[in-house]
Protein backbone atom coordinates (compact mmCIF):
# COMPACT_ATOMS: atom_id res chain seq x y z
CA UNK A 1 0.00 0.00 0.00
CA UNK A 2 1.34 3.38 -1.02
CA UNK A 3 0.51 5.34 2.12
CA UNK A 4 1.85 8.57 0.69
CA UNK A 5 -0.45 8.37 -2.31
CA UNK A 6 -3.35 7.34 -0.06
CA UNK A 7 -2.74 10.38 2.11
CA UNK A 8 -2.38 12.63 -0.90
CA UNK A 9 -5.67 11.43 -2.35
CA UNK A 10 -7.43 11.79 0.99
CA UNK A 11 -6.15 15.29 1.76
CA UNK A 12 -6.69 16.59 -1.78
CA UNK A 13 -10.25 15.35 -1.97
CA UNK A 14 -11.11 16.25 1.62
CA UNK A 15 -9.93 19.86 1.25
CA UNK A 16 -11.49 20.36 -2.17
CA UNK A 17 -14.76 18.84 -1.00
CA UNK A 18 -15.18 20.88 2.20
CA UNK A 19 -17.86 23.46 1.55
CA UNK A 20 -18.33 22.18 -1.97
CA UNK A 21 -21.77 21.80 -3.44
CA UNK A 22 -22.18 18.12 -2.62
CA UNK A 23 -21.44 18.78 1.05
CA UNK A 24 -23.78 21.79 1.04
CA UNK A 25 -26.42 19.59 -0.55
CA UNK A 26 -25.87 16.98 2.16
CA UNK A 27 -26.32 19.69 4.82
CA UNK A 28 -29.46 21.03 3.16
CA UNK A 29 -31.10 17.67 2.50
CA UNK A 30 -30.32 16.23 5.93
CA UNK A 31 -31.42 19.45 7.65
CA UNK A 32 -34.85 19.13 6.02
CA UNK A 33 -35.11 15.41 6.58
CA UNK A 34 -35.81 13.18 9.53
CA UNK A 35 -33.70 10.33 8.18
CA UNK A 36 -30.06 11.43 8.32
CA UNK A 37 -28.86 7.88 7.82
CA UNK A 38 -30.73 7.56 4.55
CA UNK A 39 -29.26 10.87 3.36
CA UNK A 40 -25.78 9.77 4.45
CA UNK A 41 -26.13 6.42 2.70
CA UNK A 42 -27.42 7.93 -0.54
CA UNK A 43 -24.86 10.72 -0.63
CA UNK A 44 -21.92 8.47 0.27
CA UNK A 45 -22.86 5.88 -2.31
CA UNK A 46 -23.23 8.57 -4.98
CA UNK A 47 -19.86 10.12 -4.18
CA UNK A 48 -18.11 6.76 -4.01
CA UNK A 49 -19.53 5.76 -7.39
CA UNK A 50 -18.59 9.12 -8.91
CA UNK A 51 -15.00 8.89 -7.66
CA UNK A 52 -14.84 5.23 -8.72
CA UNK A 53 -15.82 6.29 -12.22
CA UNK A 54 -13.15 9.00 -12.04
CA UNK A 55 -10.54 6.39 -11.15
CA UNK A 56 -11.69 4.06 -13.94
CA UNK A 57 -11.64 6.89 -16.47
CA UNK A 58 -8.16 7.86 -15.26
CA UNK A 59 -6.99 4.35 -16.00
CA UNK A 60 -8.25 4.77 -19.54
CA UNK A 61 -10.80 1.97 -19.51
CA UNK A 62 -13.91 4.11 -19.79
CA UNK A 63 -15.10 7.26 -21.50
CA UNK A 64 -16.49 10.49 -20.17
CA UNK A 65 -20.15 10.63 -19.48
CA UNK A 66 -21.96 13.47 -21.22
CA UNK A 67 -21.14 15.98 -18.48
CA UNK A 68 -23.40 18.73 -19.80
CA UNK A 69 -26.57 16.65 -19.90
CA UNK A 70 -25.75 15.08 -16.53
CA UNK A 71 -25.23 18.46 -14.89
CA UNK A 72 -28.51 19.75 -16.29
CA UNK A 73 -30.30 16.69 -14.87
CA UNK A 74 -28.67 17.30 -11.49
CA UNK A 75 -29.72 20.97 -11.61
CA UNK A 76 -33.31 19.94 -12.32
CA UNK A 77 -33.23 17.40 -9.49
CA UNK A 78 -31.96 19.95 -6.96
CA UNK A 79 -34.49 22.49 -8.22
CA UNK A 80 -37.36 20.04 -7.69
CA UNK A 81 -36.26 19.32 -4.10
CA UNK A 82 -35.76 23.05 -3.53
CA UNK A 83 -39.24 23.94 -4.78
CA UNK A 84 -40.76 21.19 -2.65
CA UNK A 85 -39.00 22.61 0.41
CA UNK A 86 -39.97 26.20 -0.33
CA UNK A 87 -43.63 25.66 -1.18
CA UNK A 88 -46.12 25.75 1.68
CA UNK A 89 -46.87 22.21 2.64
CA UNK A 90 -50.61 22.07 3.10
CA UNK A 91 -51.80 22.94 -0.39
CA UNK A 92 -49.71 20.81 -2.71
CA UNK A 93 -48.25 17.31 -3.02
CA UNK A 94 -51.68 15.75 -2.67
CA UNK A 95 -50.84 13.48 -5.59
CA UNK A 96 -48.39 11.61 -3.41
CA UNK A 97 -50.71 11.22 -0.49
CA UNK A 98 -50.06 7.77 0.97
CA UNK A 99 -50.49 8.23 4.71
Amino acid at each position, binding site marked *: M*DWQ*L*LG*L*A*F*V*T*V*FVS*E*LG*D*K*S*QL*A*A*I*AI*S*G*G*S*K*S*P*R*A*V*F*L*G*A*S*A*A*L*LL*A*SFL*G*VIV*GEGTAHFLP*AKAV*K*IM*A*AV*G*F*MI*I*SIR*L*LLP*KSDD*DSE*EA*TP
Partner: protein
Amino acid sequence: MVERLLLSSTPSTLNLPALDVAHTPSLLEVQSDSTVVSESTISTESTLGVADETGATSDRTSDTRCITEEQPGCPPWRVVTSTFITIFLAEIGDKTQVSTLLMSAEFHKPWTVFLGAGAALVATTLLGVWLGQWLSTRLSPRTLDVAAGILLALISASLIWDVLQM
Protein backbone atom coordinates in the same frame (compact mmCIF):
# COMPACT_ATOMS: atom_id res chain seq x y z
CA MET B 1 -21.87 -0.98 8.87
CA VAL B 2 -24.23 -0.45 5.99
CA GLU B 3 -26.67 -3.01 7.28
CA ARG B 4 -26.55 -1.48 10.74
CA LEU B 5 -27.28 1.97 9.35
CA LEU B 6 -30.18 0.63 7.32
CA LEU B 7 -31.52 -1.29 10.28
CA SER B 8 -31.42 1.63 12.62
CA SER B 9 -33.33 3.82 10.18
CA THR B 10 -36.22 1.42 9.73
CA PRO B 11 -38.39 1.87 12.84
CA SER B 12 -39.69 5.27 11.89
CA THR B 13 -40.24 4.52 8.22
CA LEU B 14 -41.82 1.13 8.11
CA ASN B 15 -45.19 0.96 9.73
CA LEU B 16 -44.03 -1.49 12.33
CA PRO B 17 -46.66 -2.90 14.66
CA ALA B 18 -46.48 -1.56 18.19
CA LEU B 19 -45.18 -4.90 19.46
CA ASP B 20 -42.14 -4.83 17.16
CA VAL B 21 -41.25 -1.32 18.19
CA ALA B 22 -41.65 -2.18 21.84
CA HIS B 23 -39.20 -5.04 21.40
CA THR B 24 -36.52 -2.82 19.87
CA PRO B 25 -36.03 0.04 22.34
CA SER B 26 -32.38 0.48 21.38
CA LEU B 27 -33.26 1.24 17.76
CA LEU B 28 -35.80 3.83 18.77
CA GLU B 29 -33.29 5.35 21.10
CA VAL B 30 -30.75 5.67 18.30
CA GLN B 31 -33.31 7.31 16.08
CA SER B 32 -34.54 9.91 18.56
CA ASP B 33 -30.95 10.64 19.42
CA SER B 34 -30.29 12.43 16.16
CA THR B 35 -33.57 14.23 15.52
CA VAL B 36 -35.47 17.02 17.13
CA VAL B 37 -37.04 15.62 20.25
CA SER B 38 -40.53 16.94 19.65
CA GLU B 39 -40.51 15.92 16.02
CA SER B 40 -39.26 12.43 16.65
CA THR B 41 -41.92 11.99 19.28
CA ILE B 42 -44.60 13.09 16.88
CA SER B 43 -43.38 10.94 14.03
CA THR B 44 -42.94 7.89 16.21
CA GLU B 45 -46.40 8.26 17.65
CA SER B 46 -48.04 8.80 14.30
CA THR B 47 -46.19 5.78 12.95
CA LEU B 48 -47.82 3.76 15.66
CA GLY B 49 -51.11 5.37 14.82
CA VAL B 50 -51.90 6.77 18.27
CA ALA B 51 -51.20 10.47 17.94
CA ASP B 52 -53.27 11.31 14.87
CA GLU B 53 -56.35 12.28 16.85
CA THR B 54 -54.60 14.09 19.70
CA GLY B 55 -54.29 17.34 17.79
CA ALA B 56 -50.58 17.38 18.52
CA THR B 57 -49.71 16.61 14.92
CA SER B 58 -48.15 19.57 13.13
CA ASP B 59 -48.43 20.46 9.46
CA ARG B 60 -45.07 18.72 9.12
CA THR B 61 -46.60 15.45 10.14
CA SER B 62 -49.62 15.70 7.89
CA ASP B 63 -47.33 16.54 5.03
CA THR B 64 -46.90 13.74 2.52
CA ARG B 65 -43.71 14.59 0.71
CA CYS B 66 -41.39 11.69 0.17
CA ILE B 67 -38.40 13.23 -1.59
CA THR B 68 -36.76 14.91 1.34
CA GLU B 69 -38.96 13.66 4.14
CA GLU B 70 -39.32 10.42 5.92
CA GLN B 71 -42.98 9.95 6.64
CA PRO B 72 -45.16 7.02 7.54
CA GLY B 73 -45.75 5.42 4.16
CA CYS B 74 -42.56 6.81 2.71
CA PRO B 75 -40.10 3.96 2.43
CA PRO B 76 -36.54 4.89 3.48
CA TRP B 77 -35.10 4.03 0.09
CA ARG B 78 -36.97 7.00 -1.39
CA VAL B 79 -34.66 9.31 0.55
CA VAL B 80 -31.62 7.19 -0.27
CA THR B 81 -32.36 7.07 -4.00
CA SER B 82 -33.31 10.72 -4.42
CA THR B 83 -30.19 11.81 -2.52
CA PHE B 84 -28.08 9.34 -4.48
CA ILE B 85 -29.32 10.41 -7.90
CA THR B 86 -29.04 14.17 -7.40
CA ILE B 87 -25.64 14.10 -5.73
CA PHE B 88 -24.25 11.55 -8.16
CA LEU B 89 -25.32 13.63 -11.15
CA ALA B 90 -23.99 16.81 -9.56
CA GLU B 91 -20.64 15.20 -8.83
CA ILE B 92 -20.00 13.84 -12.34
CA GLY B 93 -17.34 15.99 -13.96
CA ASP B 94 -16.84 17.93 -10.74
CA LYS B 95 -13.35 18.93 -9.64
CA THR B 96 -13.15 16.10 -7.13
CA GLN B 97 -13.80 13.53 -9.82
CA VAL B 98 -11.29 15.22 -12.12
CA SER B 99 -8.62 15.22 -9.42
CA THR B 100 -9.12 11.50 -8.67
CA LEU B 101 -8.99 10.92 -12.41
CA LEU B 102 -5.69 12.77 -12.74
CA MET B 103 -4.12 11.12 -9.69
CA SER B 104 -5.15 7.69 -10.85
CA ALA B 105 -3.82 8.37 -14.37
CA GLU B 106 -0.51 9.65 -13.03
CA PHE B 107 0.30 7.05 -10.37
CA HIS B 108 -1.39 3.97 -11.90
CA LYS B 109 -2.63 2.88 -8.50
CA PRO B 110 -6.36 3.32 -8.97
CA TRP B 111 -7.38 1.41 -5.84
CA THR B 112 -5.15 3.46 -3.56
CA VAL B 113 -6.48 6.68 -5.04
CA PHE B 114 -10.04 5.38 -4.78
CA LEU B 115 -9.54 4.38 -1.15
CA GLY B 116 -8.14 7.78 -0.20
CA ALA B 117 -10.70 9.77 -2.17
CA GLY B 118 -13.57 7.56 -0.99
CA ALA B 119 -12.61 7.93 2.66
CA ALA B 120 -12.41 11.71 2.23
CA LEU B 121 -15.83 11.85 0.54
CA VAL B 122 -17.48 9.74 3.23
CA ALA B 123 -15.87 11.96 5.89
CA THR B 124 -17.10 15.22 4.32
CA THR B 125 -20.57 13.74 3.81
CA LEU B 126 -20.68 12.64 7.43
CA LEU B 127 -19.70 16.16 8.50
CA GLY B 128 -22.37 17.64 6.22
CA VAL B 129 -25.17 15.37 7.43
CA TRP B 130 -24.14 15.90 11.04
CA LEU B 131 -24.12 19.67 10.56
CA GLY B 132 -27.54 19.54 8.91
CA GLN B 133 -28.96 17.53 11.80
CA TRP B 134 -27.39 19.86 14.34
CA LEU B 135 -28.96 22.82 12.54
CA SER B 136 -32.32 21.06 12.60
CA THR B 137 -32.18 21.01 16.41
CA ARG B 138 -31.52 24.76 16.48
CA LEU B 139 -33.91 26.14 13.88
CA SER B 140 -37.63 25.77 13.37
CA PRO B 141 -38.63 23.27 10.68
CA ARG B 142 -40.05 26.04 8.48
CA THR B 143 -36.91 28.20 8.70
CA LEU B 144 -34.80 25.16 7.95
CA ASP B 145 -36.91 24.17 4.94
CA VAL B 146 -36.66 27.68 3.51
CA ALA B 147 -32.90 27.82 4.06
CA ALA B 148 -32.40 24.35 2.59
CA GLY B 149 -34.63 25.23 -0.36
CA ILE B 150 -32.69 28.41 -1.10
CA LEU B 151 -29.36 26.57 -0.75
CA LEU B 152 -30.43 23.83 -3.14
CA ALA B 153 -31.75 26.42 -5.60
CA LEU B 154 -28.35 28.14 -5.50
CA ILE B 155 -26.58 24.82 -6.09
CA SER B 156 -28.92 24.18 -8.99
CA ALA B 157 -28.16 27.64 -10.42
CA SER B 158 -24.40 27.06 -10.06
CA LEU B 159 -24.75 23.77 -11.96
CA ILE B 160 -26.57 25.56 -14.76
CA TRP B 161 -23.84 28.21 -14.70
CA ASP B 162 -21.22 25.45 -15.05
CA VAL B 163 -23.05 24.09 -18.09
CA LEU B 164 -23.19 27.55 -19.68
CA GLN B 165 -19.43 27.96 -19.14
CA MET B 166 -18.61 24.63 -20.81
